[in-house]
């Protein structure tokens, strides 16, 4: 006998003046291996075609299906219904602009963050398409890869109290991004240049160390250690120059 699940879902269309924010309930039978993503699609197909939510890859790769599931920011496609009691509450991620119901616009935020942190390799070397690529230590490569695993889902931002109060705060995703370039030997930015990017309350010093980011990252990035690493580096940079 399969369980009957009740979904309590946030509904609001900011583009419709007659729409007011409310919670709406849906019931459906749980199937084996059901994820929140599967359940939402079933609701949309069978009960309510107007329900808004995002997804692309349904395999924890694209980062578009993040939402607040029973009080925690999670990926809908990676979260199994069997881990919860009979009632599941779904809210859109805070901080980001609401598109409608559960869909939020994380793209604008992350684009802003990428520009702010100048997320590209800064180098004076001329690119030679024929030459062999420079070699890199395996350890360094793995280090870079570890932070590159971020899928820009926004869970760390939504869970972060600081990001909720301060619009400019770059959050764990932003600090992690800077850390990624700091360990990359191809990036020729000086300590002071990094300091300018992130040596303020918008960046490394705004973080209060509450670790909601570390708790919530669906990719399991080592955000605590990465944040502390950047904090120490940036502090030394600020003190030296």
């Amino acid at each position, binding site marked *: 006998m399969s369980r009957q699940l009740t979904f309590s879902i946030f509904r609001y269309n900011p583009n419709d003046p007659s729409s007011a924010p409310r919670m709406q309930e849906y019931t459906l039978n749980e199937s084996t291996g059901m994820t929140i993503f599967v359940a939402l699609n079933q609701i949309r197909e069978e009960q309510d075609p107007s329900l808004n939510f995002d997804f692309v890859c349904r395999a924890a790769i694209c980062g578009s299906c993040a939402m607040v599931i029973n009080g*925690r920011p999670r990926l809908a496609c990676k979260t199994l219904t069997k881990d919860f009691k009979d009632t599941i509450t779904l809210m859109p991620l*805070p901080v980001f602009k609401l598109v409608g119901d559960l869909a939020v616009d994380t793209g604008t935020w992350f684009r802003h963050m990428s520009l702010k942190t100048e997320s590209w390799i800064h180098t004076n070397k001329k690119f030679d398409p024929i030459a062999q690529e420079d070699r890199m230590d395996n350890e360094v490569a793995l280090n870079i890869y570890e932070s590159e695993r971020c899928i820009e889902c926004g869970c760390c931002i*939504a*869970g972060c109290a600081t990001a*909720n109060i301060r619009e400019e705060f770059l959050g764990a995703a932003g600090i992690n991004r800077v850390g990624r370039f700091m360990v990359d030997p191809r990036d020729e930015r000086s300590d002071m240049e990094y300091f300018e990017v992130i040596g303020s309350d918008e960046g490394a010093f705004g973080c209060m*160390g509450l670790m909601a980011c570390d*708790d919530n990252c669906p990719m399991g990035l080592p955000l605590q250690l990465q944040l*502390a690493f950047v904090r120490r580096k*940036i*502090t030394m940079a600020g003190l030296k120059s």
Partner: protein
Amino acid sequence: MQSSLFSTYGYARRLLIKIITKGESHASTEVTHKNPRAELYYDIVELFTGLTLVGFLWTHMIFVSTILLGTEVYDILAAGLDDYYLSYIGIPFIIIVAIMHVLSAGRRIPTRYQEQKVIWRHAKMLKGTDTWVWIFQVITGVSILALGAIHVFVVLAQWPIDAAISTERMTAFWWFYLVLLLLGEYHAGFGIYRQFVKWGWFPRRPLGFVCKVITTIILGLGFAASGYLMHWEVPYEQLSDYNH
């Protein structure tokens, strides 16, 4: 009431910003003229004052618990700190460090009503996160500021310290000390944990465990010391005048 407390606080904080930025920070030129390292200095001040205060609190509790070795030991230690002027250097030093700590760590307290509302809503919606730990950190911080000031004032009013006077105070105000002990150790225990989390090389779980163990030991010492003080029968000739 809460918001007026916070805005007094906001004033003191702006004063500190002025000092740190050497007065360069005026509202309209905030962005262009602000000392670019102000927030770095803030964070460093927060770190070192925090560590110093936790160190003080733990040392202090170890000193208080020398009472367990007997009232003579307690009296000799208290007199020794007094004779060598350690109290006269130490107490003002700690008071200054405490003020700097309040101003630097407190810069994160949401001063605007709007921000406070966001924090509450956030903590309620995202249940079970460390946000609550932080809210308690603010509440305990503000409380021990008040309680600690009263305590220091009372101790200084009956200077010097000896076991007989401490016993009187402890017997009369044990409930006050119980609250101060619990809030103070909570604040210190989580405070040092979070500083290590923010700056350190060690993962959180073992760190949290170590901090909890130390806090438990210190709390145990505190309970034992206050229990000892309260049960000690002060010899008649050592009773202070106002108790006769």
